[in-house]
């Protein structure tokens, strides 16, 4: 995580808190200024406009959510004696969080990606975060391949993208009239991991 100028950080952190409690459409510049106790002049010194602050805060949330998951995966990897042991910890990390919280963060991620597709500035911010996420996952998958816990025939970057892709894309289920049963989803994901991605024999 790159730490910015202290005042800038205070503004970003206040915006992050407000977005997480109120949802971004309800966060106004007055609310951020009040919560952060930073002056208006200072805010416009650090950000071109209020919209930019909101964008940076949204990307920060995206970054934190991914970093947290990857850290948990790394810890599980380090603390596992066998592949089966590691494997059994994955569903808890990916789907163990309480439902509303998990769903909110998936919807927020979809919004950030949608915004980044329309705004070059946001695209760049997301690109920096996405590079870090990709390298961290590639590193973990490469180590897993060396231990014989991941498919040695697959490209680590393509695997990293595939893992993120189905997790990210499963947000469509939240926006459907009816939902897939979580147990059926986990069974399918486990098959994909077992037969393809984490198939140590290839």
């Amino acid at each position, binding site marked *: 995580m790159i730490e910015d100028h202290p005042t800038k950080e205070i503004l970003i952190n206040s915006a992050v808190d407000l977005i997480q409690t109120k*949802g971004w*459409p309800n966060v106004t510049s007055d609310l951020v200024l009040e919560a952060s106790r930073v002056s208006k002049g200072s805010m416009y010194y650090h950000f071109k406009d209020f919209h930019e602050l909101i964008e940076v805060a949204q990307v920060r949330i995206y970054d934190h959510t991914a970093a947290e998951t990857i850290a948990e995966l790394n810890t599980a990897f380090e603390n596992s004696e066998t592949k089966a042991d590691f494997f059994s910890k994955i569903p808890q990390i990916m789907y163990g969080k309480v439902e509303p919280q998990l769903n909110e963060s998936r*919807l927020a991620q*979809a*919004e950030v*990606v*949608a*915004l*980044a*597709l*329309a705004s070059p500035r946001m*695209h760049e911010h*997301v*690109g920096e*975060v*996405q*590079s870090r996420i*990709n390298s961290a996952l590639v590193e973990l998958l490469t180590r897993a391949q060396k231990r014989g816990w991941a498919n040695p025939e*697959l*490209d680590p*970057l*393509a*695997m990293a*993208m*595939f893992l*993120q*892709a*189905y*997790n*990210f*894309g*499963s*947000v*469509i*289920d939240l*926006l*459907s*009239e*009816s939902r*897939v*049963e979580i147990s*059926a*989803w986990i*069974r*399918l*994901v486990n*098959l*994909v991991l077992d*037969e*393809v*991605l984490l198939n140590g024999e290839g």
Partner: protein
Amino acid sequence: MLSSLHPTKRLLVEATISLFGTLGVDEVTSDMVLEKSKVSKGSLYHHFSDFSELLELSKVYLVSEYVNSTITIMELLLKSCNSRQDLVTNLRGLTRRTQNEASERTRYIRIRSLAVAVHSPRLRLILASEQERLTNSFADLFREAQERGWGSKKVDPRAMGIFVQAYTIGRVLDEFAPTHMDEEKWFHIVDLVIEKVFLGVESA
């Protein structure tokens, strides 16, 4: 469905969708839509509170069109197969057509309509019913494949439907980082998932 809209609304949405086909979704202006649809400005603002509402609705219906064409393609594909090997071959072809970089426009529109729906209850309802239709079609086709002995009985048809759409949409994440994956390596993973997991083929 588009046919359930008020006729004038439908003209406006159809004109907008057809402009999306030649221009980027962000390049379409209200003047262009008025000219193409031959609807008056007054009429546009009678049916929509602002132009962005028309744009949003049009994106959702564009997703609908995508849903219809995907369902048709999948139905024809399954019908034309006489063996599991046929299905494997046809699906490999389909993966290369739907998962390549060139289909990014469809991915963009699907993601942007999802994001719009998060904060718009009305669009969310429309999108949810279109989403439901697409997922159900995937599930039905997969059930048919299971009945013909080609689909793995271990896989829940609805979960399969969501999973396929999820990685197709989620491939967008590769666009952001400066280093992109090799497309062939991605196709290889998708092939393995379809063949080893969905179709339960022992050695791919």
